[in-house]
């Protein structure tokens, strides 16, 4: 596993394999003059899970919206295979009129995958997130955690090479959140995608990532890049190891620096 230093001052990057996602001095100024991002450079390779932490309103989500082309940057360039993006929203964004199975099928359906193959892929994705037995339930019959799993399964169906997560577990309780952290890490290992994850939670960031990027607010810029050297699989005990605490403290300090 290789880590490469990434920050807005160090944009010259040595990569061992072609990056799945790279930003080169990306800037974003909204029409109302808000400078959401300034000279953000980063690159993520397959097998890397990069988390961005930062104060609310610092432009973290904008980063994902640019990567997925929901928004166009006003400066710099972004390289990504647009046909191979998985995007997980803040809320589960399920269609309430569709059952779990039909929700998981949705993205494949929009890509014109034939019915038989769609069903097969959906079944596999549902299995991966542990929702088997709930295929015929409607979203309103599920808990928040299960809805998020269905949302994950929907993105997994097309086996994307890059996964973008926009604070997907922010609305869940601590216990469900930690459980889903473990499950997502399992998926990351077995599916081998490149991950870009946005969160408010320092512990979540350190626990899941190969690298944590700290963002400052207004304009959003990456002020620190902290490598997380723990190997995979990671287990819950890791959260109570002193090294884990030290890395959390490091991220926390960097965040405070970003604030002032």
């Amino acid at each position, binding site marked *: 596993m290789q880590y490469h230093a990434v920050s807005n001052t160090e944009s010259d990057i040595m990569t061992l394999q072609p990056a799945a996602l790279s930003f080169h001095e990306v800037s974003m100024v909204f029409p109302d003059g808000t400078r959401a991002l300034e000279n953000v450079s980063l690159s993520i390779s397959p097998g890397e899970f990069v988390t961005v932490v930062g104060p609310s309103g610092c432009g973290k989500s904008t980063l994902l919206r640019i990567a997925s*082309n929901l928004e166009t940057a006003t400066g710099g360039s972004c390289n990504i295979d647009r046909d191979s993006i998985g995007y997980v*929203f803040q809320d589960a964004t399920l*269609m*309430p*009129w569709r059952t779990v199975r039909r929700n998981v099928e949705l993205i494949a359906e929009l890509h014109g995958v034939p019915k038989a193959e769609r069903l097969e892929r959906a079944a596999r994705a549902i299995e991966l997130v*542990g929702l088997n*037995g709930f295929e015929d339930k409607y979203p309103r019959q599920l808990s928040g955690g*299960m809805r998020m799993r269905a949302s994950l399964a929907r993105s997994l169906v097309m086996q994307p090479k890059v996964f973008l997560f926009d604070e997907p577990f922010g609305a869940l309780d601590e216990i469900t959140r930690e459980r889903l952290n*473990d499950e997502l890490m399992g998926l990351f290992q077995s599916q081998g995608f490149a991950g870009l994850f946005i969160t408010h939670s320092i512990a979540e960031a350190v626990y899941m990532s190969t690298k944590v990027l700290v963002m400052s607010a207004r304009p959003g810029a990456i002020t620190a890049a902290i490598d997380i050297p723990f190997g995979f699989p990671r287990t819950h005990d890791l959260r109570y190891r002193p090294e884990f605490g030290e890395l959390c403290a490091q991220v926390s300090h960097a965040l405070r620096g970003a604030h002032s």
Partner: protein
Amino acid sequence: MSDSMNIDPSLEVLPDNRERTRVADLLGPAVVFALFIGVWYLLSSVILPEHKRFLLPTPHQVVKEGFLVWHTGERRGFYPILMSLWDSAKVALIGLGITIVVGMALATLMSTRRWLERATWPYLVAVQSAPILALTPLIRALIDGSMKQRLLVVVLISIFPIVSNTLFGLLSAEKSQHELFTLQGASKWTRLTKLQFPAALPNIFVGLRISAGLAVIGAVVGDFYFRQGGVVGIGAQIDVYRSRLWGAELITAIIMASVLGLVVFLFFGWLSRRAIGKWHITTRGQ
């Protein structure tokens, strides 16, 4: 593969909130019905002065003379009331069909273009509040045939709720749901059929039920102004009873027109539960 994913998620499933019919659900309507009959008796045999009591026969008089007399020639009896009710029901249902098709098409168009929405709204509101009575000479001058004239009245009276509710529903899909479709490069048609239309269904059914009730009113009102010989609509029948002071028949005809409205309303409530009850939470207003 992750072994961490073997937690049994059945613990997380929330209970179905299916409604149970309780005694109170039946008791309520029964009490209100008893009150209604009581007030009616009070009006017809106490409050009204004796020489005006022919205007409002008592409930048992109405049952005896209106419901239990089948046919006595002229237009008296339950049979001619049923016949004219059927005539009005046909007008109401055909008119409602036109309203649904035109109204939903209009709402769909309005949802795609903001300027079209703005340009159309004032006229829809105007149609909704225009007194049909004042338009009757114009309608008569423009359209031949009482059937067509009555259908036009039905459409004019019932179209507003279906347009406004469908439009509101089509625009109700969440931003993130739209973005999900945008990310997959979905076409406008796909977005409409797979996102906006299903999202609009709960609102469409609300609109349908209101429009259906109005279509019945429209048919009865249309009968008043546009009638021909032969079998006439229930509205025309009511007008005849009114002018001849046949109180029992008049009340019977009014009750039957209300029953028609009620049946249509209940039908659409049932249809709505069948179509979207599984995923849409509606416990009130049914």
